């Protein structure tokens, strides 16, 4: 099973807004730069989440209309793989 997941956003502001929304539901996440190559638009920000939170987090962000980017899971070899939930 993968351990770390990330959800990408179009800007740091939207990532911060999403992080606040998740925090209100007691879902911890870390704001970080998106690994290079995952965004076709160049630099961006993402929220890093634990696997146990990813489904709830994506559902919540979808409900609130805050999911504008993509979801990636980290493989054992360290590479990121896009996922659809």
């Amino acid at each position, binding site marked *: 099973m993968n351990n770390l997941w990330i959800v990408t956003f*179009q*800007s*740091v*502001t*939207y990532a*911060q*807004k999403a992080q*606040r929304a998740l925090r209100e539901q007691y879902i911890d996440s870390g*704001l*970080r*730069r998106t690994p290079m190559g995952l965004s*076709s*638009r*160049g*630099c*961006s*920000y993402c929220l890093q989440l634990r696997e146990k939170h990813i489904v709830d987090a994506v559902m919540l962000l979808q409900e609130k209309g805050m999911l504008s980017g993509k979801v990636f899971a980290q493989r054992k070899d360290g590479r990121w793989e896009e996922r659809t939930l």
Partner: protein
Amino acid sequence: MIYLDNGATSLWKPACVYRAVSKAMLTCANPGRGGYDAAARSAEVVYRCRERVATMFDCEPEQVVFTANCTHGLNIAIRSMVKPGSRVVVSGFEHNAVMRPLYALGAKVTVVGRKLFDWDAMLTEFTRAIKQGADGAVFTHVSNVFGYILPVEEMAAICKEYGVPFIIDAAQSAGTIPLSLKKLGAGFIAMPGHKGLLGPQGTGILLCADTPQPLLYGGTGTDSVSRDMPLALPERLEAGTVNVPGIAGLGAAVAYLAKESVDAVARREHALAKVCGEMLEDMGFFVFRGAHQASTVSFLPGENCEEFALGLARQGIAVRAGLHCAPLAHESAGTLETGTVRLSFGADGNFRQIEALGRGILGIKRE
């Protein structure tokens, strides 16, 4: 010093503002750029300020764009709404921060409501002008010269009824009169951070409900491969490094005001302006007073207004004389030739300031 020039900038700031500025300078790197702690801390400081401003003005955090000052925000808003030849309705009390961008763009400007403190005349003329056909409207919330509070809610309702986009200049009201972006339905509301909001100079805010056109192009830390600015706000309008120490101070100031309550601050300031106006009238001056007046009072000193203000300055009383960068407002009031002496109270205002002003004026008369 007795400081009565809060219409230009508030000099007194809550202690938390200085602390926040200092802390940001010591600990904050570039927000929205790096992934290390100092950059993340900086991004957090900026976003926290956006949240506080959004709560105060009833909008979403991403609709809060940081600008260098109110003029900067107005330029963005006006250039987004107005095209060369656009028919734009303005009040008779607009600042050059509104008029000069309109003239520069070649807008066809219709001026309405030139009678001071007269809401009926303003609304009648405004409605007529909007009905006749307008591509947009720009109006100040409070006249920076006379403290005249315009009926912005009614003007906003008229614009909405006729589908005319509009911009509000909240330079003199932000922080002292409650405002809601959602309820007013404005395309844009521009304001300074350093006047009624009690933040540092070099800060301003543009609240955006409509999609704006950038005035500055450059790095935003995201969407880097695009040749254009990102579509998403606030980054679309925030090219380059933002004023993090200023924004940190502004965030602290907005938190302070939220605790104090904007209504309470407004009541105190307006009461001071009323008492000050009465005192000046008792002293024999012509004072521009009326219903719907905020914390600013203008009067005619009966002599050269700049000389009069200089006389007060020599006694440690800071006021502003002249045309206040608002020749249109002075033209409306018939004071374009003379100018006025303007007194504007701030969050630290008190009755001792009015007593000191009275003594200062008597001192000038003795000279």
